[in-house]
């Protein structure tokens, strides 16, 4: 699998549709799962994936340095917009849905318990945690995705880690 940055550079430079298709196939399943993990209904998540990639195509070539972070930034903003339209709390929805799916899917209780702990965090910290430790973005990319300074991301990551460590220790 080629590097996402290389794929998007090829797409922007040469209009390489094959490179863009490869990027989409690598990123779209995980983006869908991220949106679901953030409290989006599965059906809505497909729409958001589609909308996010459409906006991504239109704007990524202006600065194709960190395409994955840029994609998650678009998706996160779209998720917030969708939530504002529906005016439902994403935190509660996340907790309910993730716990329900966790019971169905994961046999060990630890996975469900971790998801519960993450869902109990504020939305911004959930984004931070999932982008950094699940999606695997670097601190710099997370900063780009969440529109925060890199130093703030590092500090908040350390704080969230400490919080999770304490809660895991308590439980």
């Amino acid at each position, binding site marked *: 699998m080629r590097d996402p940055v290389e794929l998007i550079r090829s797409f922007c430079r040469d209009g390489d549709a094959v490179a863009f298709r490869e990027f989409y196939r690598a990123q779209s399943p995980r983006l869908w799962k991220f949106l679901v993990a953030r409290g989006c209904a599965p059906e809505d998540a497909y729409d958001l994936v589609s909308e996010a990639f459409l906006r991504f195509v239109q704007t990524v070539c202006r600065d194709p340095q960190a395409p994955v972070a840029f994609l998650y930034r678009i998706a996160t903003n779209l998720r917030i917009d969708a939530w504002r339209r529906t005016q439902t709390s994403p935190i509660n929805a996340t907790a309910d849905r993730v716990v329900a799916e966790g019971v169905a899917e994961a046999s060990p209780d*630890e996975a469900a318990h971790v998801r519960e702990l993450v869902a109990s965090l504020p939305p911004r910290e959930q984004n931070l945690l999932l982008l950094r430790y699940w999606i695997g973005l670097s601190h710099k990319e997370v900063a780009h995705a969440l529109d925060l300074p890199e130093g703030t991301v590092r500090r908040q990551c350390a704080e969230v880690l400490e919080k999770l460590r304490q809660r895991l220790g308590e439980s």
Partner: protein
Amino acid sequence: MSEERNVRDETRIERLIGNAYNRLPEPEPSRLNAVEECLMRTLPRRETKRGTVGWYWWLIAALAASAAATWWAGGYLSGGSQKEEIVPQAPTQLDEPRRESLPEPARETGEKSSNVESPTRTNERPLIYRRERY
């Protein structure tokens, strides 16, 4: 020491979160494929649109160039039929030294012009007037 603990915590949290969220249900491939096809259809359309815009710019540039050429040619042709009259101007001071350097015309003193052509002319002043001796 605390750094080591942070690294250990990070690794542990990363493993826990990975295990927890990788167990989420996978998306339906058919739905993602449908989105992919829609996206792929938009890509060539975007390029075509960009090409059309480029074609319009070329048209505008060609029209502007032809208009400028017409204007220039019109000005040139009308300027050819309306020639300005040449008005003789009074000599300026800059012309004075040049006139002094020219040889003066011979005065009407009754002398032949052969004197002017004598070889001594270059070294001596020409004989213009001689007092008569009685």
